[in-house]
């Protein structure tokens, strides 16, 4: 149990510091509220307005980016295989075939479900 005493002390110090900071900040800090301060923070630019009535955001870019990442990762794995192609032999070929097959299954799903259509 002695091993944990420093951890407990550190926890107490950390907790005490957090409580102290919040209380001191609230007591001593200046309070100047304006519209900009109440706004949500979005990288420093004017926040994009929410769609009226909680409408939908287009996810086209997201889908394209996701597909890109899938094929990007595929290349990451294909490249070392290409380098060690000789020593891996038939085993490597079969495994790589299985890997590409599973990636293409996901691709087929996206294609059949209209994920590749822009509009």
């Amino acid at each position, binding site marked *: *149990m002695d*091993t*944990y005493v420093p951890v407990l002390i550190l926890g107490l110090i950390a907790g005490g510091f957090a409580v102290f900071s919040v209380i001191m900040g609230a007591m001593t800090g200046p309070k100047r509220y304006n519209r900009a301060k109440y706004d949500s923070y979005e990288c420093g630019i004017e926040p994009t307005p929410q769609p009226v009535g*909680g*409408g*939908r955001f287009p996810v086209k870019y997201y889908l394209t980016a996701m597909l890109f990442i899938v094929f990007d990762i595929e290349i990451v794995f294909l490249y070392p295989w290409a*380098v*060690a192609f*000789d*020593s*891996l*032999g038939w*085993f*490597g070929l079969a495994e790589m075939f299985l890997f590409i097959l*599973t990636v293409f*299954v*996901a691709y*087929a*799903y996206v*294609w*059949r*479900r209209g994920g590749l259509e822009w509009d």
Partner: protein
Amino acid sequence: MSILAASSTTATFVAPHVEFGKLSPMLIAFGTATLGILVEAFAPRKQRYGIQVGLALVGIAASFAAVLALAGTTASVVAQGSVAVDGTTLFLQGTILVISFVAFLVIAERKTDQNQDAFAAQGASVPGSAAERETTRRGWQTTEVYPLLMFSVGGMLLFPAANDLLTMFVALEALSLPLYLVCGLARHRRLLSQEAALKYFLLGAFSSAFFLYGAAMLYGYAGSVNLAVIAQHVAHPTAGSTLLYTGVALLGMGLLFKVGAAPFHMWTPDVYQGAPTPVTGFMAAATKIAAFGALVRVLDVGLGVNSAENVWRPVMQAVAIITMIVGGVLALTQRDIKRMLAYSAILNAGYLLIGVTSTTAQARAAVLFYLPVYGVAIIGAFAVVTLVRDAGGEATDLSRWAGLGRRAPIPAALLAVFLLAFAGIPFTSIFIGKFAIFQAALAAGSPDLVIVAVLASALAAFFYLRVVVVMFFSDPLPQGPTIAHPSIAVKTALAVAAFATVALGVAPSLLLHLANNSAGILAK
């Protein structure tokens, strides 16, 4: 020159050896899931449901057959030391597959809710929107649920078998990611369901990050993620133990999150309440089995050396005590049956942790016995919850359950069997399980844990019995919920769960014997 040197090292690269036979249960599960995606892509919409359900059930059965074929073979570490196929692995894999089969029967149910399953017509449509009404009217279904859950089953099979931390992490993600999605797909109360999914995803991502950070620390300590190599370094330390301690703490947080132990339990009630009820049953049973399997392997194979045990045991015992107190006390205050069962799941995680911290072969066997009997009972309990319905889906508020025993004696009696089992009434399977765990903990010299556990059990008996009293001894509400008539599949699942709960309480020796035999065999 450096490029030439690099290419000369690749020339000596040796092709890895993979024992496909030993890995077949997991490969079949993942293969079935992949086939399921092709079905989604190419089968006509109307036929998908039938094909998917059939495919999933056949896949689970085939995977179970593969486990049976491997049973009795010598324990070995396969796939370049990353997967251990031993008695414990096969016992847990078999359990997960049986539980999954029963759970899929309930998940595929369409008769209780006007020929619709428990999942949203289209997960992407905004709740309450015209698109949602249109897709519901057309009778669309999110049949992706079945391949997703098969991926989850595959991850669960790999999780307790993983013999290195990276494989374990991949398994953890494979089992978790599909569950995050499926949690958000409830057909009714969709906002609650989506909130649950988001909470589960964010907290799950946090815990995965903790796990990965812990794995990195242990790699820094031992120079390997392999559990056996870590164990060697713990036994014969070559470096300071700071990295070991931080690694174990972070890894432990990731695993304790998945088993739902306090203080990492916050997600459990919200997710269990919001998720589609059949999926909640599946999660409560199968995820817990897989996560405890992984926890046992990390602690026994990787950190099962005395010098390490002395460090993690007090912490784990404290976690077990906190888990039992939190689960038992907060379950008392619940008014919603799903949330109550969620806290009950936390409480049961506490009992299991007692077994895990004891680290004797006897305790491990007790944990192995407890996992299947608890899993079967919790699936049965959630299956009964899916039957009690009103206009807005399931009526989960306990006050609405008044007098249910008079209006629907059979479902109420079945639920009473499961609740009495949770309460640890003799002649039920969980009584035997608890007895085995407490006995092992006493033998291992931790009576303090057993005292807390017995007190928590007494507390738990109160809130389990309260549901039974509400069902059987109060007057039915005039506008009470309706009791759906389930299909033969759900009836079978309920019958199997109730039969197993009673039969394993009266005659537990076969499963106890199997658990004892399996617990001793741990490939290192």
